[in-house]
């Protein structure tokens, strides 16, 4: 029964992933739709990111002890100045790990 459920989960996960590329990739889109789709990446990335750093436990936490939020500022600056994804990731991880080591939080 669990394997059948997993098969069902596979189907309902795959369909939303594949349907848009199947229907849209070969078409030339109306300009308005094309520009709407260009705004999706910044919108969806921000929509996933902000709750995870501002409210990592499900409630808004603006205290300095919220390392996810505090580390976000230098991580953002490194990404902006260096344009390096890897550099930003290492900066963020190192800051979080060091803060825990130093302040034990």
């Amino acid at each position, binding site marked *: 029964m669990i394997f059948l459920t997993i098969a069902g989960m596979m189907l309902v996960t795959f369909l939303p992933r594949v349907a848009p590329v199947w229907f849209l*990739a070969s078409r030339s889109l109306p300009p308005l739709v094309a520009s709407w789709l260009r705004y999706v990446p910044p919108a969806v990335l921000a929509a996933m990111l902000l709750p995870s750093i501002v*409210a990592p436990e499900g409630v808004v936490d603006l205290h300095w002890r919220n390392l996810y939020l505090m580390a976000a500022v230098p991580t953002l600056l490194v990404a902006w100045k260096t344009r390096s994804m890897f550099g930003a990731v290492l900066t963020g991880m190192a800051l979080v790990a060091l803060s825990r080591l130093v302040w034990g939080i």
Partner: protein
Amino acid sequence: MKTTGFVKEQPWLRGVSRALPIVMGYIPIGFAYGVLAQKAGLSVWQTLAMSVFVYAGSSQFIAVGLFSAGISPLSIIITTFIVNLRHMLMSAALSPNLKGWSKAELAVFAYELTDESFGVHTMSFKAGNPAKGEIFALNITAQTAWVLGSWLGCTMGGLISDVRPYGLDYALAAMFIALLVLAISDRIQVAVAVTAGVLSLVFLLAGLDQWHVILATVIGATIGVVVEECSKTR
């Protein structure tokens, strides 16, 4: 990302190297998923089957909880559908870059489309025209890390209980910060990102969890188009 000359010449290697931040995030999260699945009473094969065939992190965590609570299979499948519906927007946003791909290639690509691979692909497409080999190498590397992490969690969940001292729990959040910065190139996009981020948080706190990302993205992107059109006519 800065790469050496050899890696630059090899699309597959470039794909693997671009996937590294995802790997650093997926192994510990996959590990946590494997540990939870074992505690919930799933077999190793069932746990790995979900990582291989479903491959969608947050919905796998939710499913494990529902399995152990004895929720009906239909409810689990419907919940999975809702949680993963946001990938529709990502798939649509990437589609203009995939012109000329066969239906089979698109299917294989879409099968491994996750929040994280979407972010890195968006960056790659913006920076140039990545080879198919690079794109598939990134996807395969990321999913391998996810399955490997799940398997490690199943088999040695007792050995490592906490990855927090290494800051690995921040790898994906840091990656999203970088991807967001790299995805933004004008003021309207800044406004769209801020609006979508704040709306997403508000919707989440208002109890619209599972829908908050989709709603915030649709509203944010629509505002972007409206502002763009208004600034054109002026």
